[in-house]
Every structure is written in structure tokens, then in C-alpha cells.
């Protein structure tokens, strides 16, 4: 038999996937043989995330095609001393350690804190930088130490040592993804303290006029290079190189260049103690359920905004004059054409000083305004699908335009819109995970946090999926029944 065209297509697809898979894998050295591989290739690859910003690894403002930062300088020196070239491989910060284990690059070098938990999982080099955890508060607030903030909301970057400290204390933790955002919220009074590395605090927090950084180190820790468990030889070589750099002053020169040299660098520091891995226990189940409730709340309230606003926009577009119709069209294109993530950022941070919204309020309003644009188009399509005779019959009975809409058009449009509306609601349920970017812990965020705490994605992932389905299934079932009741005359016909 002649191979038909789609068999050929499947083959091409397969080849493309194989080629992509091959090109993705970085380290193909046998276990424990990475150092030999580096020598052979003449190149050491290191994983980092340039989104971490100044001063770690970032795009050079003078030439954005080049990377710069104190870690780039250190890697340049390390590579030079090893007699090879260095190449940075971009990965999201939270994925650096799993990617190292998978073999996507040779080492991790990106503000990786030397914690006991990390040492259980991978090898850590000798430290190349000693940092302090710095507590920032608003000027005028009476707090003198982290313990004065018990019960209050304290922000930090998720998955950092500072975050571990917050979790060990009876504080209400607010996890953030960016360096700037926790300090913005501190200024706006959404959190009462921010605990972060002094590198970040000095650059992003303490320079803000309303912010005061407390002079005492809440804790100290160190940054180390992450190395795969089997690569003992590589660790020994890198430790030698770092020791030599400390001895001959090159490390100090680099740190001074980046204004990072301080008295801490010559003082001893031990391993930071992070909490032991958690079990999927009753506490965690409670946290998952709380997160699920928040996800449901966010989605329901957002939908309660989206449906009437969408209907109004659809009516403006279909029946409004030129002005109303153009206004609705601009709204729809604006909210549908830009990412909801951007809209949430603008609403929460951009307009933070004007609106003073909490994370959940901002999430509900942001998602509601965004989904209104989608609902508007659903209702517009439904209104246009109603036969012309319906509005004619209504007008011929003496009904006003408003009565025609209220009693004839909208109820019939609603029946037509029900299947796509259900679709949108289920989609909204999942999009509500974007609200985690404004420090609200909903279901997906809880899953990510639990996965880190348990050092495994399996159980949290399954729990998260099950909860999403438990949330969405009854709603689609309800919609199905409603549809059956409302649309008696719209049963499918045989084809």
C-alpha cells in the first residue's frame, strides 16, 4: 500500500521532535564524567536565570546582547583557570536544580543558597559569597526585629532561604516572584516587612524613601555553585579554583567591582538550616483545601463581574450607536489583546497607589475585567444568532427596545451562550492561578510550594489536579442540566 500523506506527516513530525529533543540535552557526559567532558569540549556550561537581575546575571544595559554581573565575572575567572570557555544556559530560577540533575548544563551558579536540604540533593562548592538576611520595614513603624512581626504579613521571594525562615516563624508569609514587588507592597502597606538577601535589599528595598532596613542580620548564609551528585571530581576542581581566587584576591576584586565586598566575606558561616522535608499530612491537606476555596472564590467572583459586564459590552456593540459600539470594541480589543498577567500587574502594582487593592480584590477585578471581553464576544455571537423574526414579533406587540432585550433577546442569547460560557468558566478556574503573581496562594501556587517543601512534584501535582477537577466538574454538570432545561427545542438533529 502506498503511504498516505498523513503517515508521511507523522514521520516528519517524529523526526522534528527527535531533533528538538537531541538539541535540548546539554550534558551528555556519563555520570561522574562531567569534568572530563568539560575538558574535552573546552567549555563549561552553567545554568542561571537572567531575570534575577542586577547584580547576579543580567543583560548589559550598554549592550543587551551581552550578559554581565558578578557571577559572570566569577565564571569567567573560573573558566580561565580551568582553561576552557564558559557559556550561560538560561533556565527559570526555580527549575535550575532539577535541570542540573537532568543534565541540561554542567553546574548551577545563580545565587544558589547553601542549605542543608540542597546538600542532601546535590553537591555544593565552597561558598563564593556570604550574604545576610535583611529585614525591611516602613519608616516610623516600631518593629526592632523579625520577632516583633509575629502574626503580621511578611513578604519574600518564594523558594529562598528567607522564605524558609518566614515559614519557621509564626508569620503570615507572602511569596513573591520578583525583586521589586515585595518592596512596592511594603510601601503601600500590603505587607509589614520584607525579608530578603542583603544584595536584593540594598538594591531594591533600602533605597526607597519610605523603607527602612534594620541594621542587624536576621541570619547569614552563603551562595555556592551547584554540582551533580556524582561529579565529585568536578567539585574538587571547582573548590580548588575558588580557594585560589580567594587567596590571590581575584574574588575580592570582582566583589569590590560590584560593590558587594563587606566584612561578612572574611567571616565563617555554616550551612543554613532549612526545615526538613514535609509530609503530605493533615496540615498540608488543610492548606490545599484553603487554596482550592480561594481558587473557587476568585473564579466565581470574577465571573460575577465578567457576565453582566460582558453582556453590557455585547449589547453596546450590537445595538449601541457609533460611540457606544466603538467604545465596547476598544475595551474588548484592549482586554483580549493583552495578557491577563500584564493586566493584573498594572492593576495591583501600576495603580497600587491609586486603588489600594488587596491581592484577592485585584485578582477578582483583573480576571473579571479580562473575561468580560471574552464573554462580550460570546453574547454578541448569541444575540446575532437569534432570528430576526423574534425582535420583529416583540416590536409588533408594542414592546420597547429595553423590554425586547430583557424578555426576548437576552433569555434566548443566554441559552445559546451557555456551552461557551461553561467553557470560559472552566478556563477561568485555571487562569485564576495567575493571581499567585500578586502574592495570593491559590491552588497552583500551593502545589508549587508543597512540591518544594516535600521535594517532590508527584503527590502535590496529583492533589492539585484532583482539586481542580472537583471544582470544575460540578459546575460543568450544573451547566449541562441548565442547558437541558433551557434548550428543550435545541436538541441535536441527526446528520
Amino acid at each position, binding site marked *: 500500500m502506498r503511504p498516505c500523506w498523513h503517515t508521511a506527516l507523522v514521520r516528519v513530525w517524529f523526526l522534528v521532535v527527535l531533533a528538538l529533543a537531541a538539541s535540548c540535552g546539554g550534558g551528555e557526559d556519563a555520570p561522574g564524567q562531567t569534568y572530563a567532558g568539560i575538558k574535552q569540549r573546552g567549555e563549561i556550561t552553567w545554568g542561571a536565570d537572567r531575570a534575577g537581575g542586577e547584580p547576579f546575571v543580567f543583560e548589559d544595559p550598554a549592550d543587551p546582547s551581552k550578559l554581565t554581573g558578578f557571577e559572570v565575572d566569577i565564571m569567567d575567572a573560573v573558566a580561565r583557570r580551568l582553561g576552557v570557555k564558559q557559556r550561560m544556559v538560561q533556565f527559570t530560577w526555580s527549575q535550575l536544580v532539577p535541570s542540573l540533575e537532568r543534565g541540561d548544563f554542567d553546574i548551577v551558579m545563580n545565587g544558589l543558597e547553601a542549605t542543608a536540604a540542597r546538600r542532601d540533593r546535590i553537591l555544593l562548592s565552597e561558598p563564593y559569597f556570604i550574604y545576610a538576611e535583611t529585614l525591611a520595614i516602613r519608616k516610623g513603624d516600631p518593629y526592632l526585629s523579625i520577632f516583633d512581626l509575629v502574626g503580621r504579613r511578611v513578604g519574600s521571594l518564594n523558594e529562598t532561604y528567607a522564605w524558609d525562615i518566614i515559614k519557621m516563624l509564626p508569620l503570615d508569609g507572602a511569596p513573591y516572584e520578583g525583586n521589586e514587588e515585595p518592596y512596592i507592597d511594603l510601601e503601600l502597606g500590603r505587607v509589614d516587612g520584607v525579608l530578603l538577601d542583603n544584595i536584593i535589599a540594598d538594591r531594591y528595598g533600602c533605597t526607597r524613601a519610605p523603607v527602612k532596613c534594620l541594621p542587624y542580620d536576621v541570619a547569614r548564609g552563603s551562595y555556592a555553585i551547584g554540582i551533580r551528585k556524582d561529579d565529585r571530581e568536578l567539585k574538587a576542581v571547582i573548590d580548588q579554583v575558588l580557594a585560589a581566587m580567594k587567596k590571590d584576591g581575584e574574588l575580592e576584586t570582582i566583589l569590590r567591582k560590584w560593590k558587594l565586598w563587606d566584612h561578612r566575606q572574611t567571616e565563617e558561616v555554616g550551612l543554613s538550616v532549612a526545615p526538613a522535608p514535609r509530609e503530605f499530612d493533615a496540615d498540608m491537606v488543610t492548606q490545599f483545601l484553603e487554596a482550592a476555596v480561594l481558587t473557587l472564590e476568585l473564579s466565581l467572583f470574577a465571573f460575577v463581574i465578567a457576565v453582566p459586564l460582558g453582556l453590557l459590552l455585547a449589547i453596546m456593540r450590537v445595538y449601541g450607536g457609533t460611540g457606544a459600539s466603538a467604545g465596547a470594541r476598544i475595551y474588548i480589543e484592549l482586554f483580549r489583546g493583552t495578557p491577563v498577567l500584564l493586566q493584573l500587574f498594572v492593576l495591583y502594582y501600576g495603580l497600587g497607589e491609586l486603588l489600594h487593592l488587596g491581592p484577592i480584590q485585584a485578582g477578582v477585578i483583573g480576571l473579571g475585567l479580562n473575561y468580560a471581553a471574552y464573554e462580550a464576544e460570546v453574547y454578541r455571537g448569541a444575540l446575532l444568532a437569534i432570528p430576526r423574526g423574534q425582535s*420583529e*414579533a*416583540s*416590536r*409588533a*406587540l408594542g*414592546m420597547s427596545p429595553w423590554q425586547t432585550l430583557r*424578555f426576548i433577546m437576552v*433569555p434566548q442569547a443566554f441559552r445559546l451562550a451557555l456551552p461557551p460560557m461553561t467553557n470560559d468558566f472552566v478556563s477561568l478556574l485555571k487562569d485564576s492561578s495567575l493571581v499567585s503573581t500578586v502574592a495570593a496562594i491559590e491552588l497552583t501556587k500551593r502545589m508549587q510550594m508543597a512540591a518544594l517543601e516535600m521535594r517532590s512534584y508527584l503527590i502535590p501535582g496529583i492533589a492539585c489536579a484532583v482539586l481542580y477537577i472537583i471544582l470544575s466538574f460540578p459546575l460543568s454538570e450544573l451547566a449541562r442540566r441548565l442547558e437541558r432545561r433551557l434548550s428543550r427545542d435545541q436538541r441535536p438533529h441527526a446528520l
Partner: protein
Amino acid sequence: MISVRTLSKRHGERQVLQAVSADVTKGETVAIVGPSGGGKSTLLRCLNYLEKFDEGHVDIAGARLEPGMRGSEPALRALRSRVGMVFQQFNLFPHLSALQNIMLAPVQVKRVTAADAERDGLALLERVGLGDRGGAYPHELSGGQQQRVAIARALAMKPEVILFDEPTSALDPEMRDEVMAVIKALREGGMTMLVVTHEMQFAHDIATRVWVIDKGTIAEDGTPAQVIDDPKTAVSREFFARLRR
């Protein structure tokens, strides 16, 4: 009751109605016949301003219709509540039961209480032979039953005139009779009616007058005996001859 004066309407280049003038007195039943595309339905739909027109005016049930009205002003709505309309495709509201279809406008437009509207609605359903089908939804009714509900819906507003736009054209022959019987009964009750129709026997039976409309004008106007049995104009003769063939 109705007076049409030099009514004209254009569709782009095409003149759909050309200076039509006519009068209908109370209690008359006018059958409007003629070849397709001649302007029968357009003329009917101008009488409650579902269709706008360019020149002339219409006096109907105490109101004056003129070019340039927006189409939904209160005066027009008040007029429409006095002029019923029945459509070729019934246009019942599919999300409402037969009784709800009938009750909606009296309650919303005339502010009749729900209880009164329900009582009147049930009586009307009885009158069109559907006393037991008030709870049925349109898709559960046959075409003939739907059209009878549509007539009851128009009657519920207690109109002074009813406009029928090809009320039996979408129906199977056996269902036409039940609808025509209802219209005939209205005629006996003295209702003023204008009926666009292709049923010559029906026109002959119920009409007090027949208008033959062709190329946007009333080509012939007279009693059924004059117009159908003994047409004077060439247009009418040709039209009726073609029907008999």
C-alpha cells in the same frame, strides 16, 4: 380605520411602493393578493412601521405614521399595541410556553395583572381550539397550532386591526384549514383585518375587498366577485389565470 396616502418606498434604485393610496373602514377584511415581489408584504409591514417608508403617510387606529420616525418611540409603541400582527413563520418566542407567549405583552406593555392576563390568555387559547395546550412550548406544537397561538397572542392585546402576513404559507395543506377557520371566525366577530395570502378560495370566502398589488401599486381594488371572478386589468387576469393552471 386605515387611510394610506401616496405611500412610497425605495430599496436603492428599486421602487418597492409607488404612491399607494387606499382606505379601509372598520369591520372590513381586505385580502391582499398579487404576484411575488409586487410589494404586498412591504405595504402590510408599513402599516405598523416595521418597515420604514420614504414618502406619504398612514393614519391607522388613531395614529399618524410618517417618514423619519425612529421606529421605537412611545407613540409608535402605543400604536403597535392597537394593531396586531401575525407572521408567516409564526415567530413565537421559543423560550416561553404558549400561555406565556400570549401573556407577555399584556403584562409588560398594557400593565394588565398576571392573573387577568392568564385568565384572558386561557380564554383565547380556548377560542383558537388549544385550551389544553397552554403549558406547551412552541417546539412541542405543530405548525398549525403554533400559528393559532400566534393569533391568540395578537388578540391578547385587544387590537383594533390585525395584519396577517401570509399566515398559511408555511403550513401543510391539512393545517391551513384550522388556521383559516380561526381567521374566518374573527371575521364573523367583526374584526378589521388585512390578509396577505396566496389562497384564492380563502380570499374569496372571507374578504369583503380584494387588492391586487403589482409593481408597487394597487392594480385592482373591489369585492371578491368583481376582482377574482371577473378581473378588469391585464395584470389581474394574467395573475388569476396562472393560479388556475
